C-alpha cells in the first residue's frame, strides 16, 4: 500500500480512531495494530507477511537466548546465528542474482562460458529496513543495552506500518518504551503531523515525480541524446528528486506515527546545506548513518586504531552502505566515493591538528564555498547511484564535459523552478516553519480541514498522473 493513494487514506481513516479507542487497553491495541500492519504489508503481497512473521520469531527467540545465556561464548554463538540468519535472508532476496551475474561475468572473462538461469526472485518491499531493525534489536540485547521484550511487543516494533517499508530505521530502545507509555488522546501534536504529511506529499508527488518524468529519466535513459546543460541539470534534478522522494516518504511516515501517538527520530536535516561530506552524513538518512556508525563502523574499530585503520573502516562502512542501497557495482562506487571523501576530510583534519594550523574560517563566503563544493561532490556521486551501469554514468559525465552550446529543450523554467524550490526549501529558517505551525494550530478543526483540502488540490493537480513508487522501496 502506498501512502499517497486513496486506498491508504481509507485504511488510515479506519485505523486511526480504532487505535485511539483501544489505546487504554494495551493488549488489545497491540493485537489490532499488528493486524493492521500485516494487512498494510500484505496488501502488496500477502505471502511476504510470512517473511515478517518468520523474522519476528527468529530474532525474538534468539534475542531471548542471548539474554538468558551467562557464557560469553554461547552468547556470541547465538548472536552469530541471529546475524547470519538475517543476512542470509537479505542476501537471498536482494543479492542472489547480483552475485550470480557478477560471478558469471568473472568466469566468462576467464574464458569459461557460463549462462546460469536467473531466478525470478521478488524483492520483498522494505526487507533492508526491517532486517536492520531486527539486527539492531539482537545486537542491543547482546550488548545488554536493551532488555528482551514480549513477543507481541517485538512483533509490533518490527512491523509497525508507518515505518515498515522505508524507514526511518527506528531502534528498539526508541520505540519499545513508547509502547509502555500512556498516550493521552487529548494531546496529539496534530499540527506538526499534518505539516509533515502534506509537505511530504508535496515533495513526493509534485517535486520528485515531476523532475523524474520531465528530465531525469529521459536524460539518464539516453544521455548521448541530450546537451551538456541537460545532462548537468538532470544530475542536479536527480539530487533534488531523490531528496524529495525519500525525505517526503519519511516525513509522511513520521507524521502518521505522530497521529497515532508515536515519535520517530528525524531522518533528514536540510542535507544540501552541508559544508562537508561528514556534515552531509549527519543530515542525510540520519537513522541509517547512525545504524552504520553504531553497528558497523564502531565495531570495526572506528577511529581508535590509527589513521590507516580509520580510513579502512570508513571505506568499508561506506562501501557496504552503498551495497545496502542496491545490488549493483554502481552503488559500491557511490559508497566508495563518499568513503574516499570522508577519509580525505579526516586526513585533512588530522593534518591540520598535527601542524597546529588554525580552524578553517567560518565566514559566510567560506561556508557558501564549502556548501557548493560539498553539494557538487554529492551530485557527482549521485550519478553512479542513479545510472544503470558504469557506461551510463560515464556517458552522463562525458556529455557534461563536452556537449555545451547545443539546444536544451528539457531545461524548462518549470524544471529549474522545481530544482530551485527543492534546494531553496532547505534554507527556510526553522523558526519560520514553527511560526506557521503555531498559527495553523490555532485554526478550528474545520478551518484546518479546509486548508488541508486545498493543499490536496494543489498536490493532486500539480503532480503528474499516476504515483511512481518511492525510490527507497527497492532498497
Amino acid at each position, binding site marked *: 500500500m502506498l501512502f499517497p493513494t*486513496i486506498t491508504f*487514506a481509507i485504511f488510515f*481513516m479506519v485505523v*486511526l480512531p480504532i487505535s*485511539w479507542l483501544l*489505546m487504554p487497553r494495551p493488549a488489545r491495541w497491540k493485537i489490532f495494530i499488528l493486524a493492521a500492519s500485516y494487512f498494510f504489508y500484505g496488501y502488496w503481497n500477502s505471502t511476504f507477511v510470512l517473511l515478517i512473521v518468520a523474522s519476528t520469531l527468529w530474532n525474538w527467540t534468539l534475542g531471548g537466548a542471548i539474554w538468558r545465556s551467562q557464557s560469553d561464548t554461547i552468547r556470541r554463538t547465538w548472536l552469530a546465528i541471529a546475524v547470519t540468519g538475517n543476512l542470509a535472508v537479505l542476501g537471498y532476496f536482494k543479492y542472489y*542474482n547480483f552475485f550470480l551475474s557478477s560471478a*558469471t561475468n568473472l568466469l*566468462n*572473462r576467464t574464458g569459461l562460458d557460463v*549462462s*546460469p*538461469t*536467473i531466478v*525470478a*526472485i521478488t524483492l520483498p518491499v522494505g526487507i533492508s529496513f526491517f532486517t536492520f531493525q531486527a539486527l539492531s534489536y539482537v545486537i542491543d540485547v547482546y550488548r545488554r543495552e536493551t532488555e528482551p521484550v514480549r513477543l507481541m511487543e517485538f512483533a509490533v516494533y518490527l512491523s509497525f506500518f508507518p515505518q515498515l517499508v522505508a524507514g526511518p530505521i527506528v531502534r528498539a530502545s526508541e520505540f519499545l518504551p513508547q*509502547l*509502555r*507509555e*500512556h*498516550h*493521552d*488522546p*487529548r*494531546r*496529539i*501534536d*496534530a*499540527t*506538526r503531523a*499534518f505539516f509533515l504529511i502534506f509537505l511530504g506529499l508535496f515533495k513526493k508527488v509534485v517535486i520528485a515525480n515531476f523532475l523524474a518524468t520531465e528530465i531525469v529519466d529521459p536524460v539518464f*535513459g*539516453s544521455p*548521448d*541524446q541530450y546537451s551538456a546543460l541537460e545532462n548537468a541539470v538532470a544530475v542536479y534534478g536527480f539530487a533534488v528528486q531523490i531528496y524529495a522522494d525519500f525525505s517526503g516518504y519519511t516525513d509522511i511516515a513520521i507524521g502518521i506515527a505522530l*497521529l497515532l501517538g508515536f*515519535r520517530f527520530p528525524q531522518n533528514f536535516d536540510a542535507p544540501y546545506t552541508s559544508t562537508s561530506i561528514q556534515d552531509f552524513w549527519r543530515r542525510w538518512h540520519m537513522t541509517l548513518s547512525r545504524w552504520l556508525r553504531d553497528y558497523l563502523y564502531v565495531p570495526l574499530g572506528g577511529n581508535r586504531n590509527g589513521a590507516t585503520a580509520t580510513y579502512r573502516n570508513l571505506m568499508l562502512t561506506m562501501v557496504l552502505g552503498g551495497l545496502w542501497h542496491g545490488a549493483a557495482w554502481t552503488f559500491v562506487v557511490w559508497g566508495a566515493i563518499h568513503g574516499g571523501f570522508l577519509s580525505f576530510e579526516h586526513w585533512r583534519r588530522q593534518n591540520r591538528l598535527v601542524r597546529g594550523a588554525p580552524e578553517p574560517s567560518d565566514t559566510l563566503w567560506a561556508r557558501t564555498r564549502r556548501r557548493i563544493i560539498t553539494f557538487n561532490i554529492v551530485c557527482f556521486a549521485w550519478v553512479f547511484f542513479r545510472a544503470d551501469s558504469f557506461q551510463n554514468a560515464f556517458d552522463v559525465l562525458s556529455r557534461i564535459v563536452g556537449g555545451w552550446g547545443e539546444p536544451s529543450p*528539457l531545461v524548462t523554467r*518549470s524544471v529549474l523552478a522545481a530544482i530551485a524550490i527543492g534546494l531553496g526549501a532547505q534554507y527556510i529558517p526553522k*523558526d519560520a516553519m514553527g511560526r506557521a*505551525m*503555531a498559527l495553523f*494550530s*490555532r485554526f478550528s*478543526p*474545520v478551518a*484546518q*480541514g*479546509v*486548508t*488541508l*483540502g486545498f*493543499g*490536496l*488540490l494543489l498536490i*493532486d*493537480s*500539480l503532480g503528474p*498522473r*499516476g504515483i511512481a513508487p518511492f525510490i527507497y522501496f527497492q532498497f
Partner: protein
Amino acid sequence: MTSPTRTPPPPANPRTRRRLSPAGNVLLTLFVALGIGWLLNAPGILKTAEGLPLGWRRDVALGFSKPVAKVSSILQLDRPREVIQRLTDRGGEDDVTVALPSPTTLPPGEPTTTTTTNPNQEPRFTPETPLRVWVGGDSLSITPGESLLPRLDGTGAATAVGPVDGHVSSGLARPEIFNWSQHLDEVVATHDPDALVLTIGSNDDQPLTNAPDGTVGGVGSDAWKEEYRRRVGGLMDSVATDGRVLFWAGIPIVRDTDRYFRGYEHINQIVFEEAAKRPGRVYYVETYTPLSDNGGYVDYLPDPSGAPVQIRTGDGIHFTRAGANIVADTIMEIVNEAIDLESWRDPPKQQPTSER
C-alpha cells in the same frame, strides 16, 4: 501503558508554541480535508477509479467517484483544478476519451501480403532533411527506445522528435486508462513525425473495455481477436497516413511462456497480419526470435564477442541494457530496409558528359 504522559515539551518560543489537539478534532480535520480534497479533485479521482483493474474494487470506486464528480461539477468545485491544469499546460488531462477508430482503408480479412519490407522505392533522407522519428509505447518501449535514439542519431539522417514517450501499464485493451489513439493523434498534430516506432501490446492480454458492445472478455477468443484486430487496424490507419510510416515492435518471448502463448502470441499475430495489409505504411518488427534461444526463453545470450550477457531483468519481461540494444538493432534493421538513411553518405555521382 501506565507510566506518566511524556508529551514532547512545547517549544520555548511562545510564537512557535503549538496547540495540541484531541483525537476527535484530528479525525474531524482529516474528514473535512479528505472530503474537500475529493470534491476539488473529483475529475482526477474519477479517472483514477476508471483505470483500476476490472473487478469489484473498480466497481466500488466508481460507485463513489461518479456521484462525487457530479456534485463537484454542479457546484463548480472542479473549476480550480481545471484552471491549475490549464495554467501548467496540462488542460484536458482528466478527460476520459474511450473512442477508438476502426480501420478505414481495408476490410478485415486475410493479409494481402506477408512481406514486411517496402515493395516500393525507399524514401531517402539526408542530414539536411532528416527522418523525424517518434519513439514510444508501453513500459517495454522505454529501454529499447533509449537504445534506439542514439542509433537513429548515428545514421546522420534521422532525428528523434523528443524523448521516449513511454506510458507504463498502457495498451489498447483499456482506453480509459490511456487512449493511444487520441495520444498519437496529438503526437502527429504536434510533431508531425515522418515515422513512429511503437511498442504496445504487453498489457493487452486482458478483457477489452469500451468495445462497441461493452467489454469483450476471453483473451484469444474469436470475439476478442476481432475487437483487438479492429483496434490495431484502426490505430494503424489513423497514424500511417500522409506518407507517415509506422514501425510496430512485437512482444518478445517472456519467462512465463504460458502467458506468451495464452495472449501475446495472438496479439503478435494480429499486429503482424494487420501490418502486412498495409505494405509500405506499417512494418512489423519481430522481436521474439532475436531474444530467444531456439525459440525458448533465455536470460543470457552471447554478445558480439561470444560471451554470455544478461538480456532480461529479474521479472522475465523487461530488458537489461544489453537486451534493449538487441531490440533496438532489430528495429534499426527494419527501418533501414524500409527507409534510405545511408545513401546520403555516397559521393555524388558524376554526370556523364556527352561527346560530340
